[in-house]
């Protein structure tokens, strides 16, 4: 994964609270088995409205989404972060996120930026007025800057583990596989009653009159 230290770009404002994962990408997109190509599913229903912010030509090329509180509530579908990434977003700024969604973002190299509500409101208003206003997310300094909003070097929250991985481009699975010995020791002292599964693909039952 690429290292991310700072992100500077224009922003898309999405002034609504509790934007759920079904709005970010509808469930029908989860029938796909590919890992990319979800950009057309992003906010699919809202994009049918020509006035929707993502349809404004001046928003083209934006890399930062500025959203309302509890962004990403609902399902655990990583398809929602995939759709945001495939569309071109690199960071999401919001006063708060739903837990699973926030945890999913850094795993694919997207930055969840939890910014205090008043600064977040100012950035949202400023980028609503001026689509060309640049916003900078500095992961090393852990600050947000949007001069047009009068927001300069304002600190934001991100879990230290996520920040470390993003800035160092670490693969989580590699990190855990290095701990094979420690994992093995844990496995040896698990309680006797822990259940096991059987590894078998169960055979279908007879459907009357139906060819299997």
């Amino acid at each position, binding site marked *: 994964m690429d290292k991310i230290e700072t992100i500077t770009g224009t922003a898309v404002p999405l002034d609504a609270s509790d934007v759920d994962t079904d709005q970010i990408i509808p469930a029908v997109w989860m029938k796909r088995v590919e890992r990319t190509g979800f950009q057309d599913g992003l906010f699919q229903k809202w994009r049918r409205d020509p006035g929707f912010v993502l349809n404004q030509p001046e928003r083209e090329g934006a890399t930062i989404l500025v959203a309302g509180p509890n962004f990403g509530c609902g399902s*655990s579908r990583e398809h929602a972060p995939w759709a945001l990434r495939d569309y071109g977003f690199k960071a999401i700024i919001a006063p708060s996120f739903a837990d699973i969604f926030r945890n999913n973002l850094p795993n*694919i190299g997207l930055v969840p930026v939890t910014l205090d509500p008043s600064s977040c409101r100012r950035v949202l208003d400023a980028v609503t007025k001026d689509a060309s206003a640049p916003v900078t997310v500095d992961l090393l300094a852990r600050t947000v800057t949007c001069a047009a909003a009068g927001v300069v070097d304002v600190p934001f929250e991100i879990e230290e583990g996520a920040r470390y991985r993003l800035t160092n481009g670490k693969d989580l699975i590699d990190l855990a596989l290095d701990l094979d010995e420690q*994992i093995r020791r844990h496995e040896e002292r698990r309680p006797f009653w822990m259940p096991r599964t059987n590894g078998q693909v169960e055979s279908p039952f007879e459907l009357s009159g139906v060819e299997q």
Partner: protein
Amino acid sequence: MRTVAERTLVERIWAEHVIEGAGEELIFIDMHLIHEITSPQAFEGLRESGRPVRRPDLTVATADHDVPTSSRQVPLADEIGRRQLMLQIRNCREFGIELHPMNSLGQGIVHVIGPHMGLTLPGMTIVCGDSHTATHGAFGAVAFGIGTSQVEHVLATQTLRMAKPKSMLVRLTGTISPQATAKDVALAVIRAIGTDGGTGHLIEFQGPVIDAMSMEGRMTLCNMAIEAGARSGLIAPDETTFAYLQGRERVPAGADWERAKAEWATYRSAPDAVFDTVVELDLDGLGPQVTWGTNPGQTIDIDGAVPDPSTITDPGARDAATRALDYMGLRPGQRIADIPIRTVFIGSCTNGRLEDLRAAADVVKGRAVAEGITALVVPGSEQIKRQAEAEGLDAVFTAAGFQWRNPGCSMCIAMNGDVVEPGTHAASTSNRNFEGRQGPGARTHLVSPRVAAATAISGRLTAAAVD
């Protein structure tokens, strides 16, 4: 750092699963549940990196989201769904994972079959690429939903890197009305603390309301902890838990059962446990609840009326209410009982278990579905379907005009063709009333199985009379 005497149940289970020498944030996963729609990309990742599944013997899979509930004749007409289901069979064969595919006796909604098989036990850590994994917390397990990158991580390492959630105590006191169920308790909790009231926390439910609740009801309540924004919910095991577990397929038997039960009985928060957040709710006399809006916190008593957004002081909540009423086609002050219903759905990981079907059948027995209503019952698993049929519940439903379907997620997520018609209202026992959740333009009202059944009979959102 808290002492053992101050430790919550979540903190104890977490501590028992931390990989020593790896920092607090890497935990061992005791059971990994897989379904067809959030796992294909994870298996592909393993294949690309040449990594095996570390513990196929701690992994189990089924097909639930995509499967049709009407005809199961293969090959399926839905080409994209068929491709996904076939790929799941191939992935499970290749990596040696137990799979209960469509048309097998073990198939069902992943959160229904796990507990049914006895794979969900107190003190475990359980994950699945599905937010309603919270369901398994009902047994005193730490169980939560994860994304596909994390599914791949668990497959490859049987561990997960995750910050320990904060502990939240939700204590529920009083005696709920005989018309109310665990679903109404869940909706009342979300109504009280909000859809982000549990953010950052894992909720432990305690109190007289929980003590009196059945195992199925506890699963319903924990299932919806995610709708309050919590990572999950959990309930300490007690005699109700043990009575449910005893004799199940994968649960220890004989002397091992007694030994295991003695250990499980110690899985409770310490008497002096310190919770990060404490909420006490008096639910005395709680009646049936129904959602009027587009998130599960927008809930009201069934004999109430649609609220007026202009009376809401919080600007965010006011805007959300205004948008919700617009989407739902409702006006402030409209009586809930006057909302015309076109579809009734009984099923899902929230309310698709045998107790739910029995409760609905009790209400339906000897009555008929109202003119113009499409009503369907989708059992949570093949086993539950067959048990219900053995009790004659299918006959009660079909005689009344309900459709009796095959098991799966069905109209809860509307991926398999089971959809609510655009612009029409549905009474649904599922868990989310988000815009478009049950199909484009669908207007969902979340209710209990009893209310869903009574609504199918009357054609309006109705509480069932208690005999």
